[in-house]
């Protein structure tokens, strides 16, 4: 005698529901992590963002040198440690100078932090933000 379909599919539905519940927060986090394409083009991220997102990047030319400010937003409740540096590029796309030193910055849960960089010469026209994020 065949068992009712409902009885057969109930464990599967429960399994699917539990899987969804397990994965849903990570879907939400990934969506929040998504960086705007214009910023993503300037971002050189190594590894996973671990909940840290570059929400805005502002470029201005002050007294003939390029000045950048980038907002780092921790979209999770957990503290993370970001390592970053700016790479300055000239009109040909070549790197200017030896490269900046790496900076270690703690970003608390749900904090937004602004990092700043000033180009070393007036020949700089573009930049890349090199970054990786460690979970604390």
């Amino acid at each position, binding site marked *: 005698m065949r068992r009712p379909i409902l009885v057969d599919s109930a464990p599967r539905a429960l399994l699917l529901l539990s899987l969804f519940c397990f994965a849903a927060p990570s879907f939400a986090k990934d969506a929040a992590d998504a960086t705007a394409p214009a910023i993503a083009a300037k971002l050189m991220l190594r590894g996973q963002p671990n909940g840290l997102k570059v929400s805005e990047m502002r470029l201005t030319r*002050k*007294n*003939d*040198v390029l*000045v950048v400010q980038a907002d780092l937003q921790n979209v999770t409740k957990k503290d993370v440690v970001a*390592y970053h*540096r700016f790479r300055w590029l000239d009109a040909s796309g070549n790197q200017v*100078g*030896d*490269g*900046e*030193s*790496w*900076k*270690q910055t703690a970003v608390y849960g749900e904090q937004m932090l602004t990092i*700043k*960089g*000033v*180009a*070393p*010469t*007036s020949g700089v026209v573009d930049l890349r933000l090199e970054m990786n994020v460690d979970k604390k």
Partner: protein
Amino acid sequence: MNVFRTATLGLVLGSMLSLIACETQVSSPVIRLQRQVNYGDAKGVELVTNEFGSNDLQQIAEKMVGSLLETGIFQGRPTVTISTVKNKTSEYIDTTNVMNSIQTQLVKSGKVRFTRSIQEMQAGTDELQRQSQSGLYKQATQAKVGQMTAAKFSLEGELTSIVKQNSGTKDVFYKFTLKMFDVQEGTIEWQEEKEIRKTSKR
């Protein structure tokens, strides 16, 4: 005959294969004893101890240079000299190194000209006297005395620290302050600070 040829070919192939299998990896051109030594990233974040380190020096220099370039105070490529840099911390820190990094980056920016500092002056006057007074050089190529350009601005800095510790934690707070004075007028034309906090657990 065919059997003999096949056997010879097999033997040759076999010995070639065994030679390939026994091949060791070529060595790199390094001189190394038993200790494991490697070159590291000179720009990396150094976290060996919480004393003043290479990364602190680099961060201070970058902040000072960035701030100076951003303000636009160097319109017209003025002349600058380095005065004193006081180390008011309890550590031994070669503050000349910090100023050298700042000077290098500013010179490379092309926005400013540096004149000899007090410490560099003796070597400059020695060379000037050698050229003008020794009688060894052609008149036309000699550097003339009294033609040096004086500095319009002078850079003065100091490094201080606040150290706090208990049984489990040590916290060090460094503050580097740099001021640029107009030599003639004695006024501060620019000033910047860089704060660094380093905490370690025992």
